[in-house]
């Protein structure tokens, strides 16, 4: 069954799971350690996120890791946005440094 993505991100636990696996792929047990709810409900959330095509399972030996499924082009766009933000912040810092240096010269 294909689910609506809004349903996936409407739930705070599911949003928190996505943030966790965005940083690194994780096993269901490692994910469950971050929450104060039963393993069963974690499994349910993972199933819903997988059905929404947001998570993908990667077996590694006897373990199964869940990772965020991101379209490659979208992913590049996301990193470009991040880079733009880093540069914007850097230049704002430089504005302040230039302001200080200009006043010192006067």
């Amino acid at each position, binding site marked *: 069954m294909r689910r609506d993505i809004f349903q996936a991100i409407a739930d705070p636990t599911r949003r928190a799971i996505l943030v966790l696996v*965005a940083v690194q792929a994780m096993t269901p047990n490692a994910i469950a350690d971050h929450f104060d709810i039963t393993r069963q409900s974690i499994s349910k959330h993972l199933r819903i996120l997988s059905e929404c095509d947001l998570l993908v399972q990667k077996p590694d030996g006897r373990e199964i890791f869940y990772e965020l499924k991101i379209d490659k082009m979208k992913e590049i766009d996301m990193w470009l*946005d991040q880079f733009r933000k880093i540069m914007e912040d850097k230049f704002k810092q430089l504005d302040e*440094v*230039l302001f200080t240096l200009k006043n010192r010269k006067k």
Partner: protein
Amino acid sequence: MNLLFDFTVDKATNTIHITREFAADLDLVWDAFTKAEILDQWVAPKPYRLETKEMDFRVGGRWLYTMISPENAASSRWSLAEFIEIQPKVSFTTKNSFSDENGNPVDTGFTYSITRNSFKAEGEKTTVQIAKKMASLDELEQFIANGYYEKGMAMGMNNLEEYLLSLSTSK
């Protein structure tokens, strides 16, 4: 003051173009981009700070620096900028890569980028144009993860939520 900031990406040539105006004269802006004691004050995104180990601003010379975390942990990753072209007060070009603390290459999943910075005085302001050409835009993730944060941390909660929302509207 409203200062121009323009950011565009040419995906065909893997080049990021940035134009930014600064409210200072050319001499000062040039120094801010080429002298370690000023670079150390603005290049690292707060709360990180920059530490320069070597700066030799001449063609064939290099700038070796790293980011220090708010907990004062030195990153194991060092950034290396090798100067391959310098026209004083006009432009300079660097080859950027990651290295160990001695400037020896390390395998990070990021090869290198070529960055050209051009400067133009316009009255009281100075415009800087930056063109950063990468081997492939795929490597941008490695570039950000190695240069700025521990891997993965660069992608904050807000970005993820924005991304998820963009997915939900595009489907």
